[in-house]
């Protein structure tokens, strides 16, 4: 990178991110069709959380800060199967909600590459309502 573009990068205004106001939340949609054990689910949700945090750190730092400062609220809900998770992921992108997917490496329990978890947010609770409001808690 040349000096001018470097200086530009340093001084350019950050891409504007609306400062979040409401309750912040992260939601994990678990692929319930896979019949994973509970330890497996916990580790996969852990992957989803770390990925979502890293992703938000790059794209929505203000949302991430607000979420971390208010106790990292998270919930787990049941998704039907991989197709359901894919559909929700697409809907989330249309609604401008951060979404990251976890695909298992398949060392244990399930076939390699299975779509295990969709992590949504962190964002305001009302943004998640149309996506996961009707799903059952895990």
């Amino acid at each position: 990178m040349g000096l001018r573009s470097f200086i530009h990068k340093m001084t350019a205004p950050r891409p504007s991110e609306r400062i979040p106001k409401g309750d912040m939340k992260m939601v994990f949609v678990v692929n319930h069709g896979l019949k994973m054990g509970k330890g497996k689910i916990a580790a996969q949700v852990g992957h989803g959380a770390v990925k979502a945090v890293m992703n938000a750190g790059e794209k929505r730092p203000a949302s991430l800060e607000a979420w971390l400062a208010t106790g990292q609220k998270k919930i787990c809900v049941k998704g039907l199967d991989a197709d359901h998770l894919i559909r929700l992921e697409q809907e989330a992108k249309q609604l401008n909600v951060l979404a990251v997917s976890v695909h298992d490496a398949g060392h244990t329990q399930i076939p390699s590459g299975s779509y295990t978890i969709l992590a949504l947010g962190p964002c305001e609770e009302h943004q998640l309502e149309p996506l996961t409001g009707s799903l059952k808690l895990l």
Partner: protein
Amino acid sequence: MASMPEAPTMVLIVREDLRLSSGKVAVQCAHAAVSCTLAARKSQARLVERWRQAGARKICLKVKNLSELQMLAGQAQTAGFVMHLVKDAGHTEVEPGTITVLGIGPGPRRSIDALVGDLKPY
């Protein structure tokens, strides 16, 4: 990537005696994973990067009760690992402030294994 025995690992240790629902356990483990990762990124950025590139290995283990969990937490701290004890806010299922999960790592797999090697998978 499974063939990298030296890749760093993270362990999430759950208290069995609380009999939490699997969704609750998952959320508590996620909390430990996030807190450990953020803490480790400050002190050991390169290790965290290596851990993530090798698939961010995470294992879920269990202990019988709080005292076993606290003993492990003490040992992890003495050994110099990044660790985090998750205290539940108590909105559901358990009393506020209940310690539910211990996260250790990411750290070198061999030394973490030495610490938690006898624990059973959750």
